[in-house]
């Protein structure tokens, strides 16, 4: 039997995001919450390969962007009524592309993997930017209509996003707790040992990469519907950087950390953006503080107070084996 403590993050998650609907702080804040939750899914999906598997991908914007562009372009080309289907198609598209990219990039390790993922993402960004007739180039795609069920008022769309994100996050949660998830953690801690256990590191990494891309694609598709507009910036490398940022600020060794990170990042942009246009300066300062003082992220802080937990012991093992 599982302890109630295991479900505490879920309870907080529901209280926060459902409570927001009950309080109903106005369309502006609901829109903000929708952004947080969509970004949260993107960050949690990213964290499956970052925090869990230990692969620093710097090209996840690619999958997020593919999800958004496929959804947006299909809605533009046909009817918005099939929006729900298009999100799925976008996600499968992202997963499909990630298979080929993963096949190539996962052959490399460490910084080389990071650079190659960045290169692929920048390549697609460059193409999107230049192929004006196909993707709308610099302007992106504007006025993506919502299906009638979700049209009018941001609250409906927020509820829809909430349901989709919650289902996705639940699946990712189950994946992380499954034997497969344990294999992924094992790959991060000690890939050699995983090989000795008779498991294929490369194949499992590839699976994680594809799953991560799939859910990042869903997040992208959701975002396309939120504002009804997408732009090449969604594929640009700061978006990839944001994924790392959110996961690290929130706590990459925790499951819900990235959601918290998404909340912090989006909230910061919102609050600081009100007073000054130089909000990225303040985000930089926050990142600096997190990196220097709270390397385990916001949700990881409590871990310092207790006795050494498994995660820290794992890290020591990693250091000792020189991996």
């Amino acid at each position, binding site marked *: 039997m599982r302890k109630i403590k295991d479900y505490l993050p879920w309870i907080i998650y529901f209280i926060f995001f459902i409570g927001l609907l009950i309080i109903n702080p106005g369309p502006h804040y609901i829109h903000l919450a929708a952004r947080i939750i969509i970004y949260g899914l993107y960050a949690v999906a990213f964290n499956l390969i*970052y925090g869990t598997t*230990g692969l*620093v991908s*710097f090209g996840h914007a690619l999958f997020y962007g593919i999800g958004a562009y496929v959804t947006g372009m299909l809605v533009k080309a046909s009817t918005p009524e099939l929006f729900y289907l298009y999100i799925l198609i976008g996600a499968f598209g992202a997963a499909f592309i990630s298979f080929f990219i993963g096949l*190539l990039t996962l*052959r*490399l*390790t*460490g*910084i*080389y993997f*990071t*650079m*190659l993922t*960045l*290169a*692929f993402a*920048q*390549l697609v960004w*460059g*193409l999107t930017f*230049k192929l004006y007739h196909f993707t709308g180039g610099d302007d992106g795609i504007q006025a993506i209509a919502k299906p009638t069920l979700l049209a009018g008022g941001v609250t409906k769309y927020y509820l829809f996003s909430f349901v989709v994100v919650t289902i996705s996050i639940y699946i990712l949660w189950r994946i992380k707790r499954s034997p497969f998830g344990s294999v992924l953690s094992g790959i991060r801690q000690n890939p050699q040992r995983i090989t000795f256990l008779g498991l294929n*590191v*490369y194949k499992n990494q590839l699976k994680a990469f594809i799953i991560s891309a799939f859910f990042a694609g869903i997040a992208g598709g959701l975002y396309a519907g939120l504002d009804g507009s997408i732009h090449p910036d969604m594929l640009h*490398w700061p978006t990839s*950087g944001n994924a*790392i*940022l959110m996961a*690290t600020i929130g706590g*990459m060794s925790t499951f819900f950390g990235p959601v918290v990170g998404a909340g912090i990042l989006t909230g910061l942009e919102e609050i600081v953006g009100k007073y000054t246009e*130089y909000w*990225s*300066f303040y*985000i*930089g*300062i926050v*990142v*600096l503080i*997190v*990196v*220097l003082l709270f*390397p385990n992220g916001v949700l990881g802080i409590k871990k310092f107070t207790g006795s050494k937990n498994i995660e820290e012991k794992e*890290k020591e093992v*990693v*250091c000792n084996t020189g991996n």
Partner: protein
Amino acid sequence: MDFNTFIAQFISGLSTAMLLFLVSSGLTLIFGVVNVLNFAHGSFYLLGTYFAFQIMKLFNNYWAGLLAGTVGAGIVGMIIEYFFLKRIYGRANEGAFQLLMTYAFILIIDDMVKYIWGTEYKTIPKPAFLSGSLSIGSIMVPSYNVFIIIIGFLIVIFAWYFLMRTDRGKQVRASSLDRIMLSLLGTNVPLIMTLVFGVATAMGGLAGVLAAPLRTVTPGAGIEIIIDSMIVVVIGGFGNFWGALLGALIIGEVLSFGILWMPELATVLTFIVMIIVLILKPEGLLSKKAIVRK
């Protein structure tokens, strides 16, 4: 394409290559010696440009600006290494933290530049005697490009002399091989790391000043150059100084001829080159270290 255009384009590519080399050799030095992938390297390029702009406005002298941009960027680099980057060395999962910290510095420095100097385009004029063009046979070449190429070659020769023929240079090379052993032998390794970081960022700043008259000066310039330089470093091999030279030459010429061949997709071309190299020889053209796992 006739021969004259070819040569003119080749020389233009060479000057681009030299600018890329100045930035990416710093990047690769930092990676090799300090073991940090300095994503904020483009921001030092940017700082160099704007420091130079400020000094040129005050003294109306190109050379004072050149000096100020180079030294200024180097000093800021040393401050950042000494007070910030030092604190994350040797941490578990260091790579991700390096990425984040340098990313944070991109955000901070770029926004400070925007705040101090504004977002509008600035221009830095070429020094008077370099504003014309040289004619080699029937080919006209802007003399400023030749100037950049000469400076680039001087730096290459100087760097070769320093790294290969002086004791300090030997220490720098040794620290990229075995840091612990070197410090056991009584060398102040942290000092070497700080100095290398300073020199490397100063080279970034120098590139920023040199490039300024050719391109418009905007706060976005740092981001543009860093992506190209990353490609150069990856192609040549991380931490490999001569690899950076080879990579810069390849990318410089690819950019230069790519613009003739398909003007819209020249930048995309560089990524394709990088992907091909990474797939065929992932450790970079001039590196021997095997990093592909079986």
